[in-house]
């Protein structure tokens, strides 16, 4: 375990996990979805909107709006504001910034929100306009979007470490099993390994059930200090540690590891826990092969042993390694930037004991990770956080 000089997140409380149930397509705007999430936060926490004095927002489909436009739109008057365009790493990044803001009394109650709509053509438009490198040097090549980019990474990873589709498929199949207990998951039918293997190819070796379904939805939570949560009578989780990293391992010719691998020692040292101590793990699962990579980079097994790890463990809610208990993006859907929040919000519910049908019994410590922004040939942004519930 590495020593860390970082200030602990003492006194930081995370509360009020909110999910606005997803729909495949929506005629409402991203602003509508974010508005619903803010409204649900206020209702769940029993506060007034005017009590929110910090706002952190992530979305791909807000058009010309950023966070500041939303303050006027929603009648908020905040003294701390951030707009985080980090895709799948937005939730972790938002959480760690908000935590420092409340710790320093720059704000008292920060609403962290992500929401996106999904019009019939909005996913294609997001792909077309994703980033400059993508527009210059990726999208004109077959316009396969993230599927094609991750296919290259997956193919190289699977060949390098002798991983089969069956190994990867176990992750997707287990998540579907979990999703069947989540009434809000868009995927409602069971998935067998045979069905997974027989699915149509999208961009070899990525097949249909390796892909997330773009949809509309929103996720949110509140960050405040302990005493604020106590005075509001709000059950809250503590933040034990976080890591964040961008453009790690730039010299690797192809991505076989994410930024977590640089910072993993610090993640556990700061939290004072070991990987074995975690009760539930929520990885960023845009493609199960990326989840397998996270199992390695987050320290559950060594590099190259992800497939064996998956074979040795039961990843379902009642299994020995409860993972993506909501069903994850693969089975719940990917509501744009809200996909980054899905795991963190579900992890928060787990340690608060409010996950309902997907609750892991006696869950008190959870890890959630994020991964995002395939700017050119690899995902650039990575992050992770460890939360502890009141029972610990």
């Amino acid at each position, binding site marked *: 375990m590495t020593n860390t000089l970082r200030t602990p997140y003492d006194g930081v409380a995370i509360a009020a996990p909110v999910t606005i149930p997803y729909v495949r397509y929506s005629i409402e705007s991203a602003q509508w979805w974010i508005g619903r999430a803010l409204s649900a936060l206020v209702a769940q926490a029993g506060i007034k909107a005017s009590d929110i004095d910090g706002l952190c927002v992530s979305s791909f489909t807000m058009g010309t709006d950023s966070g500041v436009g939303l303050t006027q739109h929603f009648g908020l008057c905040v003294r701390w504001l951030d707009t985080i365009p980090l895709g799948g790493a937005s939730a972790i990044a938002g959480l760690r910034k908000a935590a420092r803001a409340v710790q320093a009394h720059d704000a008292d109650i920060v609403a962290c929100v992500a929401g996106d709509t999904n019009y019939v053509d909005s*996913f*294609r438009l997001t*792909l*077309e306009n994703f980033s*400059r*490198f993508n*527009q*210059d*040097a*990726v*999208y*004109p*090549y*077959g*316009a*396969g*979007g993230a*599927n*094609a*980019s991750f*296919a*290259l*990474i997956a*193919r*190289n990873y699977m*060949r390098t470490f002798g991983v089969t589709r069956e190994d990867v498929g176990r992750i997707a199949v287990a998540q579907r099993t979990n999703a069947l207990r989540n009434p809000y998951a868009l995927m409602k039918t069971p998935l067998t390994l045979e069905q997974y293997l027989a699915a*149509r*190819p*999208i*961009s*070899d*070796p*990525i097949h249909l059930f390796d892909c997330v379904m773009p949809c509309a939805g929103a996720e949110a939570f509140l960050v405040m200090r302990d005493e604020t949560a106590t005075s509001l009578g709000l059950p809250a989780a503590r933040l034990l540690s976080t890591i964040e990293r961008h453009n790690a391992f*730039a010299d690797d*010719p*192809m991505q076989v590891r994410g930024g977590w691998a640089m910072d993993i020692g610090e993640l556990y040292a700061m939290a004072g826990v070991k990987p074995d101590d975690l009760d539930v793990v929520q990885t960023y699962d845009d493609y199960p092969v990326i989840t397998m990579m996270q199992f390695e980079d987050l320290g559950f097994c060594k590099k190259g042993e992800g497939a064996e790890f998956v074979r040795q463990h039961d990843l379902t809610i009642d299994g020995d390694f409860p993972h993506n208990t909501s069903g994850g993006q693969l089975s719940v859907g990917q509501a744009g930037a809200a996909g980054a929040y899905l795991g963190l919000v579900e992890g928060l519910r787990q340690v608060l004991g409010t996950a309902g049908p997907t609750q892991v019994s006696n869950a008190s410590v959870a890890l959630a990770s994020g991964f995002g922004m395939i700017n*050119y*040939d690899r995902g650039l942004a990575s992050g992770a956080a460890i939360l502890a519930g009141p029972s610990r």
Partner: protein
Amino acid sequence: MIEPIKPPPRKNPLLRTRLPASPPRPRSRISHGFTRAAAEGRFMLQCCAACGSFAYPAREACPSCLSAGLAFVDAPRRGTLLAETTARVPSDVYFRERAPWRIGLVKMDCGPTIVTHLHADCAEGAAVRMSLQLDKSGQAVAFAHPEGETPNMADDKQWREMTADPKFRRVLVTNGRSVIGQEVVAALKAAGAKTVFVGVAEPWRPFAGEKLLRGQDGIEIVTLDAADEKSAADLAADIGGKVDILVNTTEYVRPGGLLDRRGTSTARDEIDQAYLGFINLAQAFGPAMRMRGADGISNSAAWVNILSIYALANWPAFGAYSASQAACLSLSHCLRAELRPGGVRVMNLFTGPVDTEWFQTVPPPKVAPRAIAQAIVSGLRGGLEEMYVGDVAEEIRQRLAANPKALERELDR
């Protein structure tokens, strides 16, 4: 291993002709360094003047040392294909109708990794040779080729999208009376063109070289006087839907500039023949070509202009002619923009004085008509947009880039 493409069957006139779609077009401004390279068939990457490292995609500062001195330089083409994938359900119309489409990630020997289109014979783990091509949007893209020659290599489906290979295509050569026109006909025929239509004004009048054209298999003499609007329109009404490549071989060379050639009658002829002739041809044949950019294996693919290098810098000895060529060059850029939605490329071939009658008094070096014809074929096969044929054209280009004022003074002799 690529199966050779087969001659396309006769088109069923009852079926709808597929309209062309374009691959994604937006690019950053700096990334048009690749467009410039691709237009001329060069392979260029940004190389840092301060630390010498190569960078890709196009950047504004060196990722090794943050220097802004990232010039595009000719770069080594060799790399290794690290991984490939086949996009089967792309989100964009152009690729969706051409799926499955293979792409890969290549690690260049000189450093960067490049997402690239793949020739079918590229294999994972093996060496590849990179080129920059212009796609059907006219934008530069990277293309990986196998390192060595493979059978029927030019027939690769993805490669054919990047080129305008004459094989199995029908070509209109607009002036068969000239030596250049006749050489172009022969070269295109040898390159596998299905039919070469050869425009001849007043074809009952005998002309030198007629025997090379008449009664030859796959060569059809058609009546065309490009300077005559009605003649161009009449021919287009007849064969406009069958022209896949048009080579504008209109020539009208007369010596002289402004002060020693009194009046405007010669200048008017130059404009009528070269400039208005170009307009007539474009208006007659352009619209159908633009419509047929996705019409199967023998879709319309290219428009070729043969321009004097003095279109770029006036040569007073042939001053008015130079000006008419400059007008045609400008017009070609307009045509390029207007044909772009059809994926039809406009290739300009710049030449110095040609070894023909009207340049009789000009000292060598002069360009052989056959060299022009061969350059056209190689340019079409390589998917180029600009070509400089012969030593004079190449020299003028370099001098123009080095110091346009020096060139202007020195052409005045």
